[in-house]
């Protein structure tokens, strides 16, 4: 039954991804279509209100600048709201203002689509900031990521100097994708028992006569966009493990598919832009094959359980249940964990800190690679960057100038790609190493031994990959962690996006080379495996040593 439910969910995803990708192509190709009539009426007043008179194409620099300025404005406004939240409306539980470094961390975290949370929602935010800051940023950061991905794809598949208009993309991502989908998913979740209310914390007398306070609030509206936008920040501290956020197996599957289907649809959007359905399948199957390997490892490790508890004399046949919920069991937990770190959502329905060593290594490695589907557009961009790298390496081996989609890949692009690829391990490994020589960082580790190394590593990997899940035992609400992970999230998001937009800008300007018999094909199964090989090679070269110190060493000690 475990395998069956997993297979059904994966099957549903494959069914959804292609039509959804083609729909997204219609949204971002800006060609007149039926969807204009459906959404034009609400977009016109929005364009008028923000003062966007002509929707002319932008150069890559102008596109990147518009993206950055918009994000900066939202960060500034959001920061002010967090710092003043106690005096704003909708604060029935009397929550105080947020502390400076925590507010800074929170606002960067949500703007970069990371959703690393160093606060706990029940006690750290008012209903107003849960809505106007957190829920709002879940939309805007996801829409920003989608816009950038659309621009990148336009750049590498079209001729000219422009990548599209950022503000037009940003508005359309809201009106045609996120707002309608989120509203529907919200209502379905409420029907399945996720609360949506503005009433304060409930107080009930329990069956045993004790008093129980139950935190509640506008949960469902946050929950839907949390997954659709691959954000991952929970309303409550324990995220989707909380019975109000994720009350049963059906909500669990809806959340899994919500966070997975948009990233999985992006390769098909790209295929339409590149006018090659095969290109789409090459990228999609590379992602899916990697995913299936990771899922198998996670499921097997959790089902086999923790050797130390298997030997303790109880009936441990169910597997590793520490940190997991009975209603999801091993299958529902392993699938959620593998999807949330593949799609870089970062929501959790079980505690990743309590996963078995190899089960916990799966989310870690997926975030290190950052290309197994990947969230909000960035995953597709990363995968395409690896595709260009694969073409480059193959070109070197046969002594030809590498080409991708009919464009020559030259030193300028390769330099930018090197920056995009190398920034990721650098902002993970450098702060991890620094933490181990500082008392400020070491003091936060809650699990001793090799697992402590993994806790620190996981925190920075999650921040750099803009994932946001955590090994939550780590006592991370201190100025040291707030500032260091804040910086890592910031660089993790913006360095690679700007480098990739620059690559797109430079490719868009190039002359097309006619395809000949000698052209290296990038639309067949061979290239799928070359692509996977490149991803695994780069990942292993950069991260294998540190994995050996953390999860692998822990696995060997308790085996």
């Amino acid at each position: 039954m475990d395998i069956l439910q997993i297979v059904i969910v994966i099957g549903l995803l494959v069914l959804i991804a292609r039509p959804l990708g083609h729909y997204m192509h219609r949204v971002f190709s800006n060609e007149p279509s039926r969807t204009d009539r459906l959404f034009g009426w609400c977009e016109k007043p929005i364009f008028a209100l923000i003062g966007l008179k002509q929707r002319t194409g932008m150069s890559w620099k102008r596109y990147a600048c518009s993206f950055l300025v918009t994000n900066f404005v939202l960060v500034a406004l959001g920061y002010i709201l967090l710092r003043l939240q106690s005096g704003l409306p909708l604060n029935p539980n009397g929550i105080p203002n947020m502390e400076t470094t925590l507010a800074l961390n929170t606002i960067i975290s949500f703007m970069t689509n990371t959703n690393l949370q160093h606060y706990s929602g029940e006690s750290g935010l008012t209903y107003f900031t849960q809505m106007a800051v957190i829920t709002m940023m879940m939309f805007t950061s996801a829409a920003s990521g989608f816009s950038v991905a659309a621009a990148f794809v336009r750049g590498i598949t079209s001729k000219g100097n422009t990548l599209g208009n950022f503000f037009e993309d940003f508005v359309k991502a809201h009106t045609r994708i996120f707002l309608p989908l989120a509203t529907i998913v919200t209502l379905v979740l409420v029907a399945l028992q996720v609360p949506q209310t503005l009433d304060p914390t409930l107080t009930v007398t329990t069956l045993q006569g004790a008093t129980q306070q139950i935190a509640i609030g506008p949960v469902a509206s946050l929950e839907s966009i949390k997954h659709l936008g691959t954000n991952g920040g929970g309303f409550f501290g324990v995220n989707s493990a909380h019975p109000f956020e994720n009350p049963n197996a059906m909500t669990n599957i809806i959340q899994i598919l919500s966070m997975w289907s948009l990233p999985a649809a992006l390769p098909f959007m790209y295929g339409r832009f590149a006018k090659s359905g095969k290109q789409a399948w090459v990228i999609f199957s590379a992602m899916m094959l990697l995913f299936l390997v990771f899922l198998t490892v996670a499921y097997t490790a959790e089902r086999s359980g923790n050797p130390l508890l298997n030997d303790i004399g109880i009936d441990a046949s169910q597997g590793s249940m520490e940190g997991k919920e009975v209603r999801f069991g091993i299958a529902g937990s392993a699938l959620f964990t593998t999807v949330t770190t593949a799609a870089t959502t970062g929501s959790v329905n079980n505690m990743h800190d309590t996963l078995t060593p190899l089960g916990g290594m799966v989310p870690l490695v997926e975030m290190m690679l950052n290309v197994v589907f990947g969230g909000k557009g960035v995953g597709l961009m990363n995968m395409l960057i690896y595709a260009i790298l694969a073409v480059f390496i193959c070109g070197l081996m046969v002594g030809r100038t590498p080409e991708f989609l009919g464009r020559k890949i030259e030193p300028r692009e390769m330099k930018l790609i090197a920056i995009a690829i190398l920034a990721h391990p650098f902002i993970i490994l450098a702060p991890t190493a620094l933490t181990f020589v500082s008392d400020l960082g070491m003091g936060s580790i809650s699990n001793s031994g090799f697992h402590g190394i993994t806790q620190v590593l996981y925190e920075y990997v999650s921040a750099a990959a803009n994932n946001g899940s955590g090994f939550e035992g780590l006592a991370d609400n201190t100025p040291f962690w707030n500032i260091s992970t804040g910086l890592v999230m910031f660089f993790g998001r913006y360095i690679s996006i700007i480098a990739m937009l620059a690559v797109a800008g430079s490719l868009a300007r190039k002359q097309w080379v006619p395809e000949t018999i000698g052209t290296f094909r990038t639309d067949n199964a061979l290239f799928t495996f070359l692509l996977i090989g490149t991803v695994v090679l780069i990942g292993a070269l950069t991260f294998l040593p540190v994995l050996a110190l953390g999860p692998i060493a822990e696995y060997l000690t308790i085996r």
Partner: protein
Amino acid sequence: MSTTVQEGTEGRSRAEVVWIALRAGVLFIVLCGLVYPLVSTGLAQLVFPHQANGSLLKDSDGRIVGSELIGQSFSADPGAFHGRVSSIDYMAEASGSNNFAPSNPDLIARMEASIADWQANNPDIPVSELPIALITNSGSGLDPHITPQSAFVQIPRISKVTGIPEVELASLVNEHTEKREWGIFGETRVNVLKLNLAMIEKQRA
């Protein structure tokens, strides 16, 4: 394109980007941060008021005894079905667990204490039949469910304390065993609060 970013208009257009971004920022805070959640709340309260307000559970007298989704602490009462271990003791104003790593010595110590406690209070059921789910900490600390097996192993103890025959308790557990959704998704499970409520009402009747 080259018409929009000409040399002379560069400065003006840069200011324009900032101006548009500012207006877009404010507009989307209102749209996504206020209109969307408030409209959702209104719709939810209108169409699904029971679910939207936390799926509260009432006893036969109509008194609210909690939410069917949120577990409660029964560990002090040997005559009730116990839920899973909760480091926060089911205090639902917060949520969480100790996040013990699989290699953490404190985890083993806690498990051993649970086993000793089990042996003292449940002499009829050997430790080898004690299911792991019952003595592990759920992720949320608020897990309302246990596995059916975790309920069955508690029957001898409860029967001894309350005097309810074991067969009656077993049929009560069977009655309250929730199946997998559509027969496929999720796990079979027992809601501890509902089960205890049913047992109390049975005693009263």
